[in-house]
C-alpha cells in the first residue's frame, strides 16, 4: 500500500494493521526516516518537502511492485510525507512483512534505497538564516545500483 500525506503517522498502528489477521507473517521489518537538526556543519531548523502529485503515487507503486516481484512478501507499506517538517519529525515509513526475516530485511532496504533515487520528492532545508535545496548524494545512487539485477554488489 502507498500513502502520500502531509499528516504524521503512527508506526505501531501501521504495523498492527499490517499483521492483524495474517498469521502467515513471521516478521516485519520497518524503516522510519527522520528529519535531523544538522546538515553537514549547518543547523537545520525545518525542512519542506515538495513532490509531483500526479506522479508520486505511481512511482512509489512501481517501486513497491518491483519489491513484491523480487521477494515473497505478505504485505508492504510505504508512507511518504510532504510539506513542512521539523527536526525529529518522521518523513518516510517503509514496512514489509514476510514469512521469514531475510526477505523482510532485504526488501525493506531495497525499498528505501530505490525510493531515495526514484520517487519524485525534493527537500529544501531552512537553516533559520536561509533556505537551500538539498543536493542528491552520490552515495544514494550507489546504494540503488547495488540492487541491479544480475550484478554482484559493487
Amino acid at each position, binding site marked *: 500500500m502507498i500513502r502520500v500525506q502531509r499528516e504524521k503517522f503512527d508506526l505501531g498502528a501501521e504495523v498492527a494493521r499490517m499483521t492483524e489477521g495474517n498469521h502467515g507473517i513471521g516478521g516485519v521489518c520497518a524503516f522510519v526516516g527522520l528529519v535531523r537538526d544538522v546538515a553537514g556543519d549547518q543547523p537545520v531548523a525545518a525542512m519542506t518537502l515538495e513532490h509531483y502529485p*500526479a506522479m508520486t503515487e505511481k512511482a512509489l507503486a512501481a517501486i513497491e511492485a518491483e519489491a513484491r516481484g523480487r521477494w515473497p512478501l505478505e504485505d508492504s507499506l510505504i508512507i511518504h510525507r510532504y510539506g513542512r517538517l521539523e527536526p525529529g519529525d518522521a518523513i*518516510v515509513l517503509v514496512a514489509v512483512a514476510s514469512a521469514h526475516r531475510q526477505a523482510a530485511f532485504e526488501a525493506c532496504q531495497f525499498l528505501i534505497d530505490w525510493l531515495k533515487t526514484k520517487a519524485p520528492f525534493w527537500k529544501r532545508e531552512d537553516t533559520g538564516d536561509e533556505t537551500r535545496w538539498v543536493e542528491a548524494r552520490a552515495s544514494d545512487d550507489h546504494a540503488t545500483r547495488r540492487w541491479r539485477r544480475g550484478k554482484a554488489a559493487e
Partner: protein
Amino acid sequence: MKIVYFAWMREKAGVGEEEVTPPPEVKDVRGLIDWLKGRGGGYAEAFADLSVVRVAVNQEYVTLDHPVAEEDEVALFPPVTGG
C-alpha cells in the same frame, strides 16, 4: 503541451507549470529544452547543465531523446532527494 517544473528548476524558470506550443521542429525532450532555453529569462539558467535535468513524460521517467507530442505532460526537475 503542458510543462511542469519542480524544486530549484521551478524557481529559476519562475513558473510551476505552463501550457506551451513549441514549433514543429521540436521532436524530443532535448529539443524542447533547447527551445525553452531560447526563451531567455530564468530558463537558460535552469537548464544550463543538462546532466542534472531529470525528465518524466506523462509521469514516467524518460531520457532526453524521448519524443514529445502536443498532448504530453512533460516534467523537468533536478535529481530527487526524498526518503
